[in-house]
């Protein structure tokens, strides 16, 4: 439970961050730091159980059908990484308030960093491969967001590069997850790791290689190391947190976790040792030639991560303990160094080591802390860095896959450490030696310095007191790989070979530093960029270009070429269906009546006129005629409700189109080129044939459907309504009807929202208004009351006979349309109707009718009978139908009001401005 609380708490903190920054501004970081520490404390409270080898577990079903459980599990290894995430996070959060500028709230920084901490926490606690993958990707994406934070152009390239590299690794991890889950039948990480022998050789090689690939992209190992220095365009706290202490450690965590599965097999071990040492040396060489402190630290991180990777490859209890200890050490001193560089950058205005000479006179405390952290980096006693590096040397010496390999590995590690010592010495020398260039410099506020100071002191003090860490580190080492007791960690081991190597490192490092003037030209000749950098960029550009090529056909502005493709797809689909369709039942013989042929003939004539006419008016009228012909046909097929609805809709559509056409040219656009017409005719005929064939094949081949039969027999007695179509609408399928009414409401809202400019035109001072049409006005005065009365009657009797909310509302809407035609400036009475209030009331009534049954314990929208004095019993369905009525009316009102064109005449400038 505690795991879910801490992990959930982290995301809650992220959700609370906007409130905190709104309230406290940049100082919100302090509150967040307390939150991080609370989480860390809660996790640490589980320490006794973990030391007794009892993992803390929580699990709940996620995708039960796939056997995937969202499972969190914390053992000592997870705890150490989780504490790094939350502990370093707390330092960085406490550092942010003074680093970030006071003129902004920095909500985005705080939210993303806190989310990122949550993702990292999830990553190290996840006990299911899929969950692990999800958090892995989440951390990559959040890292991308944090690097490209404010969208500055220079930050975009590196951010994209980091994203491309780390998500490529993410894909590899996903494939590894699939391979493991498919070949072992479970995605439970703990189960998979518990029994390495179950994995067959083939999948093991594939999954092992993929896991290594994922880890080295995330942990910036050669040849993917280039993204990490690029990521230094991010804010310094981000660099300190993500690109030194946590994100890049995700790869280390992954390798340590999977050591139980793949460790001890020579391809895994030798790959890690080789790649790791190569990266350690390359990174250190590149760091040695940097003058920008942040770049120096970035390459240093690459190098140190390489050292860690190589130690994981050794695979003894001692080496695992060394890797864990050095992970802690590195997180501590590297985050400290980043924070201090940020402080120096803020105070002195530069990160260039050559511009910072003599800094110690102006900022003695900052410089002292920098020296302490640099000692840790260089591996000098008494720091934790010293203990960690000793442990690494000791572990590497024991490598015995190949004779003498141990000494080769240790020698290479000494080389990397020597280079590290040299660049650490340069850093220290840079701030200590020489004249003070900026005399007006002073120490930063103690609140700015405090987080870095605490971390620096901690990194130093943990050296002599490393025994405190020992039980947890030993436990974590055997959690990573259950293969026996790790040696007790101690500050002083006696005169061991490792101590000799340490001394050698210091001697060689000093020499290298001493002769820096001779080595500098050599170092400057090393290319900084990986050959991959250029290729990656080229591939990415090619991909973007390819995307543009693919998208080009879809980016035409005319509808015809765009619509032609889905239509062709429909035709192709039909061709496939013809091939695959089996024998069909015979058609019902009685489905065609003589009158149908008349309807078909009328339709053909009307449609022929419609597709050939050049007159807008004729086209609209003919479309209306098509609707009316169909309405008549619906009447003959036993669908009077449908027929009436269609008739009213046709009238309304015609009114609305005419309103929209008012003041517009009466001619349609010329039909275009002959080729286009022929292609159009061809496609239209094909589509028509397909539609006919499909309808013929798939309809009319059975008797009444069971559900239709049920309605015919039972609907009336179940609802008390005689008009079965209406009972379906308001009683049986009321939820559908509600959904459809809401669609109409959305359309109406869209109309109201889109149509502001038309309003502006209408009320423009001096705009020509349409005069009242006397004939229409008379018709309106005579007909409107009749229509409204008929509407009321249709509505009230809808449950029993022809009628209902839809039909009645359309009839009332026709009256509204007539009124608008007669009185463009606003008809008496009906012209006062507005869409928005009608819509609101209608939706409210429909919802009330739906909710009312809940009060008496019935389901949503169940019709209930209400007995009213003097009226008799009334169904709550009537109230629902009234809601539908009002919503449909609202749509008509909005359409009529908003679609009316502006009076003819050129639209003047100001209105055009507003349209834009």
């Amino acid at each position, binding site marked *: 439970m505690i795991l879910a609380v801490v992990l959930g708490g982290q995301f809650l903190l992220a959700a609370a961050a906007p409130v905190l920054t709104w309230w406290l501004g940049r100082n919100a970081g302090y509150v967040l730091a307390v939150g991080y520490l609370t989480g860390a404390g809660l996790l640490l409270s589980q320490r006794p159980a973990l030391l007794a080898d009892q993992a803390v577990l929580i699990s709940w079903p996620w995708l039960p059908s796939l056997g995937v459980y969202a499972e969190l599990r914390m053992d000592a290894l997870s705890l150490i990484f989780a504490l790094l995430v939350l502990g370093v996070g707390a330092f960085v959060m406490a550092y942010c308030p003074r680093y970030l500028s006071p003129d902004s709230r920095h909500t985005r920084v705080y939210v993303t960093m806190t989310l990122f901490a949550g993702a990292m926490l999830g990553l190290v606690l996840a006990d299911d491969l899929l969950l692990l993958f999800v958090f892995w990707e989440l951390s990559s994406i959040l890292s991308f967001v944090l690097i490209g934070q404010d969208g500055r152009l220079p930050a975009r390239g590196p951010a994209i590069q980091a994203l491309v590299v780390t998500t490529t690794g993410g894909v590899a991890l996903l494939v590894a997850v699939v391979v493991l889950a498919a070949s072992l039948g479970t995605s439970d990480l703990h189960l998979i790791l518990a029994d390495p022998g179950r994995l067959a050789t083939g999948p093991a090689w594939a999954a092992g290689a993929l896991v290594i690939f994922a880890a080295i992209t995330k942990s910036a190992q050669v040849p993917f190391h280039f993204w990490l220095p690029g990521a230094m365009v991010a804010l310094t706290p981000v660099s300190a947190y993500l690109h030194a202490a946590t994100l890049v450690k995700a790869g280390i965590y992954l390798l340590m976790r999977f050591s139980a599965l793949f460790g001890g097999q020579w391809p895994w071990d030798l790959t890690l040792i080789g790649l790791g040492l190569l990266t350690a040396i390359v990174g250190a060489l590149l760091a040695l030639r940097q003058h920008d402190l942040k770049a120096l630290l970035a390459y240093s991180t690459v190098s140190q991560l390489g050292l860690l990777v190589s130690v994981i490859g050794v695979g003894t209890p001692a080496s695992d303990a060394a890797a864990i200890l050095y992970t802690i050490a590195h997180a501590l001193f590297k985050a400290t160094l980043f924070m201090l560089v940020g402080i120096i950058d803020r105070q002195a205005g530069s990160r260039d080591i050559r511009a910072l000479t003599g800094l110690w006179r102006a900022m003695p405390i900052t410089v002292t802390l920098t020296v302490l952290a640099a000692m840790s980096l260089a591996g000098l006693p008494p720091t934790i860095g010293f203990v960690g590096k000793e442990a690494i040397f000791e572990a590497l010496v024991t490598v015995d896959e190949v004779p003498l390999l141990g000494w080769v590995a240790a020698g290479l590690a000494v080389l990397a450490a020597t280079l590290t010592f040299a660049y650490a010495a340069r850093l220290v020398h840079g701030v200590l030696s020489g004249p003070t260039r900026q005399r007006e410099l002073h120490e930063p506020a103690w609140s700015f310095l405090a987080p870095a100071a605490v971390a620096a002191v901690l990194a130093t003090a943990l050296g002599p007191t490393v025994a405190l860490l020992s039980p947890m580190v030993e436990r974590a080492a055997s959690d990573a790989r259950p293969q026996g007791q790790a040696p007790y960690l101690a500050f002083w081991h006696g005169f061991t070979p490792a101590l000799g190597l340490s001394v050698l490192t210091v001697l060689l490092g000093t020499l290298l530093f001493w002769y820096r003037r001779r080595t500098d030209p050599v170092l400057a000749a090393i290319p900084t960029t990986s050959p991959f950098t250029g290729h990656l960029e080229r591939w990415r550009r090619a991909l973007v270009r390819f995307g543009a090529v693919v998208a080009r056909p879809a980016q035409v502005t005319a509808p015809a070429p765009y619509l032609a493709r889905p239509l062709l797809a429909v035709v192709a689909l039909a061709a496939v269906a013809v091939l695959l369709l089996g024998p069909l039942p015979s058609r019902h013989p009685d489905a065609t009546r003589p009158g149908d042929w008349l309807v078909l003939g009328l339709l053909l004539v009307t*449609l022929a006129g419609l597709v050939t006419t050049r007159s807008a008016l004729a086209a609209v009228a003919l479309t209306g005629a098509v*609707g009316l012909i*169909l309405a008549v046909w619906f009447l003959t097929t*036993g*669908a009077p409700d449908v027929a009436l609805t269609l008739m009213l809709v046709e009238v309304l559509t015609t009114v609305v189109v005419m309103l929209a056409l008012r003041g517009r040219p009466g001619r349609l*656009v010329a039909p275009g080129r002959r080729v286009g017409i022929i292609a159009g005719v061809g496609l239209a005929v094909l589509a*028509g044939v*397909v*539609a006919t064939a499909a309808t013929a094949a798939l309809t009319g081949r059975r008797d009444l459907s069971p559900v239709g039969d049920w309605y015919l027999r039972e609907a009336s007695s179940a609802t008390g309504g005689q008009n*079965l179509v209406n009972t379906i609408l308001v009683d049986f399928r009321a939820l559908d009807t509600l959904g459809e009414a809401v669609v109409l409401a959305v359309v109406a809202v869209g109309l109201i929202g889109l149509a502001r400019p038309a309003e502006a035109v209408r009320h423009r001072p001096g705009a020509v208004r349409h005069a009242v049409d006397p004939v229409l006005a008379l018709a309106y005065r005579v007909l409107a009351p009749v229509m409204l009365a008929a509407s009321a009657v249709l509505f009230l009797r809808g449950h029993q006979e022809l009628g209902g909310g839809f039909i009645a509302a359309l009839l009332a809407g026709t009256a509204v349309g007539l009124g608008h035609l007669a009185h463009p400036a606003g008809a008496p009475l009906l012209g006062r109707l507005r869409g928005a209030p009608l819509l609101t009331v209608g939706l409210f009534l429909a919802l009330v009718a739906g909710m009312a049954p809940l009060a008496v314990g019935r389901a949503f929208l169940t019709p209930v009978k209400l007995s009213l004095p003097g009226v008799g019993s009334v169904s709550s369905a009537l109230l629902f139908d009234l809601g539908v009525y009002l919503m449909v009316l609202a749509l008509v009102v909005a359409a009529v009001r908003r679609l009316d064109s502006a009076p003819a005449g050129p639209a003047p400038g100001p209105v055009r401005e507003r349209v834009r």
Partner: protein
Amino acid sequence: MSGPLIVGVLVAAGVFLLLRPGQLRLVLGFVLLGHAVNVLLLAAGGLHRREPPVDGGGAESADPLPQAFILTAIVITFGITVYLLRLLRRASRRGSRRPETWDRGPR
């Protein structure tokens, strides 16, 4: 075969209008396609029973369920048509300085 043929001619005419230049034709073509789908729904219920589905309508009563679907479909088609008209007018205003090009294809 009358039902399928009605669907077919409506679809053919609708598709032809959709593929022609001009925004008004686009809207009208859309309306015709809407009709075609409504007829298809009705045909799915079976065209061999043609009495209105009222209580006690007997053995010739049509299936009421497709009718309920069509009824809402008609009203929604109307809503979409109206919205389409509005969108197209807005697009034409944006695309052109001269109102008389309203019925030209979008650029």
